[in-house]
């Protein structure tokens, strides 16, 4: 472990310890009578207000993925990497349309997961299972991505080595995360999110004001970045990118933004955060307030250009052959050690909050929609919580294996693979919130077709550096453009659903029972049939 920056490491560790203490104390924060009920552990008792929900959901956008992978994409390919901004903008009209209806129907019927809703709406256990399995599979690479973020920071601080020494800090961070999620449930990330988001806001605001003054202003940053992107990349024989999208990349840019926006609010962890809010309007307000994060996300992406514009940073990142080091290296070179330490802590803690929510969301899905539904229909609430706690540990171990077994420079594509899968639950979930017209077996068939197409197509993408999963975009059949695989798969999904629904209805195949009523979708906390389980009311 040579060349460790002691100041950076010390500050990083101090914040980690602080957050860990908060994580364990969170079990006492706003608690109901008992934590041994899945609603209490997995949804924080379902009573977060606008403010807490804003921080909690903001934690889903502002992950290590944001801090590391988005600027890395801009560093590596220019304008193409900026698609995260339109994604983070157009996701919110979708949140506004589906979030409140999902909140209402879930609170009337006691749904904790998306799969609960789909099973109840379409009267189909297998469709519920499909949604649950998709959610769990999509969560794994997403959690892995958060760990990759911590790794990038540790590399720049100088914590490296071989074998166990290299992975040890990650294992420690991981064990702590697992321990406080186990004891405190959703309250831990909700409380830690306050620290994390404050740190991240501070760091980004300082970065976008301070660094341009050191680099000769924004105009100069864009000009230098353009010159750097125009140089020929020896691996491909083409320029590595451009300052604006071209005829070749317009479609990819738009479909990546659209496909990811469809995914944002149906990801299990986002739904978990949203259902924990106390009232329907909390979600509507947050749809309007969360774009504040998106604005900073756009500025954050531009840190990739700052890294390009500073020759010593660009050279160091290229020498390491890892664009994910762009932002940590930039901070390391530009900021004094103590502030670089704060910035790294922000990234590290920023990885823990979503990782905790994601593992809770995945374990809720498993416990309710696989374990209880198919194996132990009469499981008690206490047993449900115990199983969920154990599964959240298993999910984290799975993510750890993901990180150690796959090439780390793949993190953004791993997450996009999860995105390809999760988008395929959009018809059942999001359209299902508005209409019951689709036939349950048609939805299942559309999902299956799209999952197979999406996974195979992603697998076939290769580059000089990678044989498989090299990118999340591919040629769109019959269109002659390159587009995000999730969107193509989604179109295939919908075509299958529409055609088969017509056929199945004409053939008179039995459709499941819908346990919801139209009025359930607009219910609010003032309505008497909105479910607050008795133990949740006691404060």
């Amino acid at each position, binding site marked *: 472990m040579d060349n460790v920056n002691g100041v950076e490491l010390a500050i990083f560790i101090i914040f980690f310890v602080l957050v860990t203490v908060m994580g364990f104390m969170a079990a006492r924060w706003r608690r109901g009578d008992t934590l041994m009920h899945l609603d209490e552990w997995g949804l924080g008792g379902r009573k977060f207000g*606008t403010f807490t929900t804003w921080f909690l959901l903001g934690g889903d956008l502002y992950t290590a993925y944001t801090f590391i992978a988005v600027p890395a994409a801009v560093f590596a390919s220019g304008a193409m990497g900026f698609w995260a901004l*339109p994604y983070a903008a157009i996701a919110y*009209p979708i949140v*506004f349309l589906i979030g409140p209806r999902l909140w209402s129907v879930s609170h009337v019927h006691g749904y904790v997961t998306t799969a609960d809703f789909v099973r109840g709406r379409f009267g189909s256990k297998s469709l519920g299972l499909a949604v649950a399995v998709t959610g769990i599979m999509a969560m794994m690479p997403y959690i892995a991505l958060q760990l990759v973020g911590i790794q990038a920071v540790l590399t720049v601080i100088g914590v490296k080595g071989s074998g166990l020494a290299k992975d040890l800090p990650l294992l420690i961070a991981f064990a702590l995360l697992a321990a406080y999620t186990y004891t405190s449930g959703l309250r831990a990330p909700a409380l830690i999110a306050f620290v994390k988001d404050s740190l991240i806001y501070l760091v980004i605001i300082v970065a976008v004001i301070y660094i341009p003054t050191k680099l000769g202003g924004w*105009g100069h940053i*864009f000009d230098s970045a353009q010159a750097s992107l125009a140089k020929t990349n020896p691996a491909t024989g083409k320029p590595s990118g451009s*300052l604006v999208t071209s005829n070749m990349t*317009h479609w990819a840019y738009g479909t990546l933004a659209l496909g990811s926006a469809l995914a944002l609010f149906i990801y299990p962890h986002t739904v978990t955060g949203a259902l924990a809010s106390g009232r329907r309007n909390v979600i509507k307000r947050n749809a309007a307030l969360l774009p504040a994060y*998106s604005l900073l996300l756009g500025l954050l992406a531009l840190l990739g250009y700052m890294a390009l514009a500073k020759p010593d940073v660009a050279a160091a990142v290229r020498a390491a052959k890892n664009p994910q080091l762009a932002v940590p290296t930039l901070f390391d070179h530009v900021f004094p050690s103590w502030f670089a330490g704060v910035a790294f802590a922000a990234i590290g803690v920023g990885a823990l909050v979503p990782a905790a929510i994601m593992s809770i969301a995945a374990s809720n899905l498993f416990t309710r929609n696989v374990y209880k539904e198919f194996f132990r229909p009469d499981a008690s609430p206490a047993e449900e919580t115990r199983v969920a706690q154990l599964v959240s540990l298993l999910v984290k171990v799975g993510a750890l294996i993901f990180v150690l077994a796959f090439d780390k420079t793949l993190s953004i594509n791993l997450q996009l693979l999860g995105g390809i899968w999760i988008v395929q639950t959009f018809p059942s979930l999001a359209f299902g919130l508005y209409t019951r017209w689709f036939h349950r077996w048609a939805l299942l068939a559309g999902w299956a077709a799209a999952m197979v197409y999406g996974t195979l197509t992603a697998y076939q993408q290769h580059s000089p550096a990678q044989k498989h999963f090299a990118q999340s975009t591919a040629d769109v059949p019959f269109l002659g453009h390159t587009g995000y695989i999730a969107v193509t798969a989604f179109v295939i999904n919908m075509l299958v659903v529409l055609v088969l629904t017509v056929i199945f209805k004409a053939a008179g195949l039995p459709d499941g029972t819908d346990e919801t009523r139209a009025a359930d979708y607009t219910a609010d906390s003032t*309505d008497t049939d909105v479910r607050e389980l008795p133990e949740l009311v006691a404060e």
Partner: protein
Amino acid sequence: MPQRAARTTSPVVRVVVAILLIAPFVVYLSVPSYAKVRPRLAGFPFFYWWQLVWVIVTALFIGAAYLLTRQAGAPKDGGE
């Protein structure tokens, strides 16, 4: 379980809300319309500042949609 009617919104409000929510998609998904460097603003190429400005506009549109539909969802609640 008590009976409760689904709350509805007037057609005019529905159309306005639909426009407010669809506009960001139209703007962001017409990628070629903003894929240009000029005019620059404070050093930012058009591609970047246009998309950043529309984040704010999107937030305002959703905020307006919230205010327009608030009465429809629930009795006005007194904030946090």
